[in-house]
């Protein structure tokens, strides 16, 4: 029996679809942990990034937090969290929140700085109060960038949640880590495929959400699409995990 067939048989085995260790429950765990971490990080990071962008001070911090985040390995963050909080769900959650914060701070800051000073002034000239300027002018323009930050963080979190199986937590990474430990390579490979597909689904659906969040007047036409290299101020927040 060749390897592809073994993997297929693994997927077709009904026992792998049932109970707490089954594929549906592990997928649910993975998504629930990722969702909770991204939401918690958003509640912390977005107000900070938006406030720094609105006030216009502390930009160096907002930009560099992503660069610092990139230099610290996700794996190390996870293991340090285990040393601090024990094994299981809590250290995984805390590590994932910590990893999700920097791209969101940076991108929401960049989004707020993208708002043209003239636009802001015109809004004030029209008699808008500070609150209205923020809510009705700055935030809609910044929204695509904010969404980009959430997307980067979410993809990174889904990836790192896989590593959390190493610190005795569930999720789809369990199949990889257990397959590894039992030398059950079809199981390990099946786990890898499921994690990869889940990451791609998250990436593509959030990319769609990012497009929908772009106000109609700001959508780039195909011909004048602006391109910026990675590593400039606009795109400092990409990470791989």
């Amino acid at each position: 029996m060749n390897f592809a067939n073994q993997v297929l048989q693994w997927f077709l085995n009904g026992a792998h679809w049932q109970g707490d260790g089954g594929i549906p429950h592990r997928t649910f765990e993975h998504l629930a942990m990722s969702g909770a971490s991204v939401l918690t990080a958003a509640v912390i990071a977005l107000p900070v990034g938006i406030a720094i962008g609105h006030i216009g001070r502390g930009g160096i911090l907002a930009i560099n937090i992503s660069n610092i985040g990139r230099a610290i390995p996700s794996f190390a963050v996870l293991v340090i969290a285990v040393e601090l909080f024990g094994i299981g769900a809590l250290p995984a959650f805390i590590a994932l929140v910590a990893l999700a914060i920097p791209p969101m701070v940076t991108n929401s800051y960049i989004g707020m700085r993208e708002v043209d000073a003239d636009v802001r002034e015109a809004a004030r000239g029209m008699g808008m109060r500070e609150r209205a300027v923020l809510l009705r002018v700055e935030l809609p323009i910044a929204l695509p960038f904010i969404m980009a930050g959430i997307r980067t963080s979410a993809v990174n979190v889904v990836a790192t949640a896989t590593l959390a199986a190493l610190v005795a937590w569930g999720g789809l990474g369990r199949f990889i880590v257990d397959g590894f430990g039992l030398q059950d390579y079809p199981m390990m490979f099946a786990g890898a495929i499921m994690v990869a597909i889940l990451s791609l689904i998250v990436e593509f659906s959030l990319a769609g959400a990012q497009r929908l969040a772009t106000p109609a007047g700001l959508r780039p036409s195909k011909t004048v699409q602006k391109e910026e290299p990675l590593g400039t101020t606009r795109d400092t927040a990409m990470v791989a995990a």
Partner: protein
Amino acid sequence: MLATGVVGAVEDPWIRWSWISGHADIIAAALVQHIQLTLIAVVVGLVIAVPLGLVAWRSRVFRGPIFSLTGILYTIPSLALFSALVPFTGFTILTSEIGLVSYTLLILIRNIVVGLNSVPDDVREAAQGMGYRPLAELVRIDIPLATPAILAGVRIATVTTIGLVTVTALIGEGGLGSLIYDGLLRDFKTPLVVGTVLSVALAVVADLSLAGAERVITPWSRARATT
């Protein structure tokens, strides 16, 4: 209960200097391996990315597929990619490098294409008017002007790779990641702290040296920034 209480009472400190001095050779070997894995990944990544970047730049037909494919590779979590390769390439450096190289491609190719696209049409026309043939124009005009963007890509790819190398500890490589993994397995903080600190330090040193190299190689971009 009592016995474990006594064992638990011996607090494991975050850093035990005696372990470091006793294991300097292991730490040095891990650091060297980390640098090797990173260097191979970035160099091989560049060797693949430059031709693909040129193709993606020149041909609209190939640009879409090249960006989609490298984007998909970039999105797949590292642990999934490494473990999907193990049944085929085993617990070898090859498995690690296939994974690490594929993560550099999106960053490098994207910056090559954007850098080349940013060369002003006037400059290109002037070169053609001066009689540059396509290859000479590419080598002497386009690539030098795209260098700042390309080097920015190399910087990000390098720092990203340094972080990802730690994950390869799970498939028997790992460089400094093997110290982190060792700390996790034995619940012993010192190797964890040493591995993490050295990995971050390596990323910072690599980033700063590449920034320095960028200033030396492209002095004009600094001149433009200050005026």
